[in-house]
C-alpha cells in the first residue's frame, strides 16, 4: 500500500465558539488604553474622561446616596412606561395579526408613526401629558409601542398555520385557538421583539427626562452634558449601558422559563 493516505480534513469552521474571556479582555484593554492616553495627555481631557475619574465619580454618587435618588425614579419610569407600551403593543399586534380589517387600518398608521422622532414631539407631550410623571410614561410607552406592535404581528403571522388548521379540524372554538395555539406560538417572537423595544425604552429615558425631571439617570446625564462634566456624563451613560445588559439578561431568563419547551 505505497500510495495510501488518510483522507484530508476539510470541514469545520463557520460555527461560532463561545469565548467569554475575550469580551472581558476587550473591555479591559479599551479602558486601559483610554486611561493611559488621558494620563499621557495623548487624549485631551475634552475628548474623553479618565476612567479612574469616572469610577471615582461613580463611587461618590453611590456614597452620597444620590445614585438611588436618580436610579429609582428612572427605573419606575422605565417600568411603567415600558409596561404600558409593551402591553398596548402586544394587544394591538395580536389584533393586527388576527383581523384583516384591523391590520389594513393600523399597519400603515404604525408604519407612519415609527419614523417620527420622539424628541420632536417633546413640546406636545408637555401639553398632552403635562410635565410630571405622566408625560415620561407616555413618551417611553409611545417609543416602546411601535416596535412591539411590529414584532408582535410578525410573530403572530409566523405561527405555524398547520397548528391552527389542526385546532380547526378538532372544532376548537376561536377563543381556544387564539389562547392555546396562536399566543403561545407567537411568544418566542414577541419576547425577542421585546429585547429591541426595551433597549429603545432605555434610550428614551433621556428624552423622557428632558421634561421637567429633577432626578433620574436621564436628567443626570442631561445636566452633566449641559455642564460639560464628562466624568458624570460617562457615569450616567455607563449606568444606562449596564441597565441595557441587565434587561437583556432578564429577557433571556424569561425566555428560558417561558420557552422551556424548546429545550
Amino acid at each position, binding site marked *: 500500500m505505497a500510495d495510501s493516505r488518510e483522507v484530508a480534513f476539510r470541514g469545520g469552521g463557520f460555527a461560532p465558539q463561545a469565548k467569554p474571556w475575550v469580551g472581558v479582555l476587550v473591555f479591559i484593554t479599551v479602558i486601559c488604553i483610554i486611561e493611559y492616553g488621558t494620563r499621557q495627555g495623548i487624549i485631551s481631557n475634552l475628548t474623553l474622561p479618565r476612567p479612574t475619574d469616572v469610577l471615582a465619580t461613580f463611587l461618590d454618587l453611590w456614597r452620597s446616596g444620590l445614585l438611588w435618588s436618580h436610579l429609582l425614579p428612572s427605573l419606575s419610569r422605565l417600568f411603567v412606561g415600558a409596561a404600558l407600551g409593551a402591553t398596548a403593543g402586544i394587544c394591538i399586534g395580536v389584533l393586527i395579526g388576527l383581523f384583516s380589517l384591523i391590520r389594513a387600518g393600523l399597519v400603515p398608521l404604525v408604519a407612519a408613526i415609527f419614523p417620527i422622532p420622539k424628541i420632536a414631539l417633546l413640546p406636545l407631550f408637555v401639553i398632552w401629558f403635562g410635565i410630571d410623571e405622566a408625560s415620561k410614561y407616555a413618551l417611553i410607552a409611545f417609543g416602546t409601542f411601535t416596535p412591539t406592535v411590529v414584532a408582535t404581528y410578525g410573530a403572530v403571522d409566523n405561527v405555524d398555520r398547520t*397548528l391552527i388548521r389542526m385546532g380547526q*379540524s378538532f372544532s376548537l372554538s376561536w377563543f381556544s385557538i387564539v389562547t392555546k395555539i396562536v399566543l403561545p406560538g407567537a411568544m418566542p417572537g414577541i419576547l425577542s421583539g421585546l429585547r429591541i423595544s426595551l433597549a429603545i425604552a432605555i434610550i428614551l429615558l433621556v428624552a423622557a427626562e428632558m421634561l421637567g425631571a429633577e432626578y433620574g439617570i436621564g436628567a443626570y446625564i442631561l445636566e452633566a452634558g449641559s455642564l460639560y462634566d464628562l466624568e458624570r456624563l460617562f457615569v450616567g451613560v455607563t449606568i444606562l449601558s449596564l441597565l441595557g445588559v441587565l434587561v437583556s439578561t432578564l429577557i433571556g431568563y424569561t425566555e428560558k422559563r417561558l420557552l422551556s419547551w424548546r*429545550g
Partner: protein
Amino acid sequence: MDLQLEQIGHRYGDMAVLDNINLDIPAGKIVCIVGPSGCGKSTLLRLIGGLEKPSAGSVVQVGEPPAGSFNPLTYVFQDFALLPWRTVEDNVRLVLEDHPINKTETNAIIHDVLSRTKLIEFRHAFPRQLSGGMKQRVAISRALAVKPAVMLMDEPLSALDSQTRELLLDDLIRLWCREPFTSVYVTHNLNEAVRIGHSIVVLSRRPGRIREVVNIDLPLEQRARGHIELDRQQTHLWNIMRDEAIAADQELLSG
C-alpha cells in the same frame, strides 16, 4: 355514518385542482387515495373535512355520527401538528378541553388512548423529546380521543423513516382490526396503500380526476409483507401511475 362526494370540483384562482370527483366512503372501511404530487390529494381531504369549501359539488354526510363522538371528522396530519409547548398528555387534552366532560372522564380517555398506542410511560414528555414515530402515535392518540366517525389521514407516515413507518403501519392495522374505523388515507406509497386500503382511488395529474378505483378484498390482517396478490396489485397500480409520475416530476412549478 357514510360520506359521499358528489361531483366535487375545486379551483384556486385560475388553477383547477380537482375535477368531477364522485366517491363513496362507506363506514368501517379504509379508502386510500394515491396520485402524483400536487394532484390535489390534500385539497380533497380538506374538502372532506370541511376545512375548505369546494368550488363545485358537495360532501354529504349520510346517517348520524355515532353517539359520543366529539368530532366526527378528525384529521391526522403528515407533520404531526403537535403543540411543542404541551406535553404528550396535554396535547391530547387540548382537543377535549372545549367539550363538556369533567376531569376524571378526560383523564380516563387520555389514559385509554395513550395505552392503546403504548405511550403511557411518555405522557409527561414534550414533543421535542420524542422520535418521529412516537410523535405520530401521539397524533393518532389525539385523533382517537375525540372518538371520530371518520379519520382523515394525510400521508400520516411519510415524515417517518422507513423502518419506523413499517412499525407504525403494523400498529395502525392492529388498531383497525381491534376496532374497525372509517378512514380516508392519503399516501404516496403504493406499498402502504395495498397494505391498508380496502379500496384504492388513483387520481390523475392536476386537475385531479379519478383514474381508477382498485378494490382489494384480502382482509387486512392477512396482508403480510411480500404477499403475492399484494405485489401484483402494487405493480398494477405502479403501471397506471408511472407516466403521470414522470410527467409530474418533469413539470416546472409556477410562481
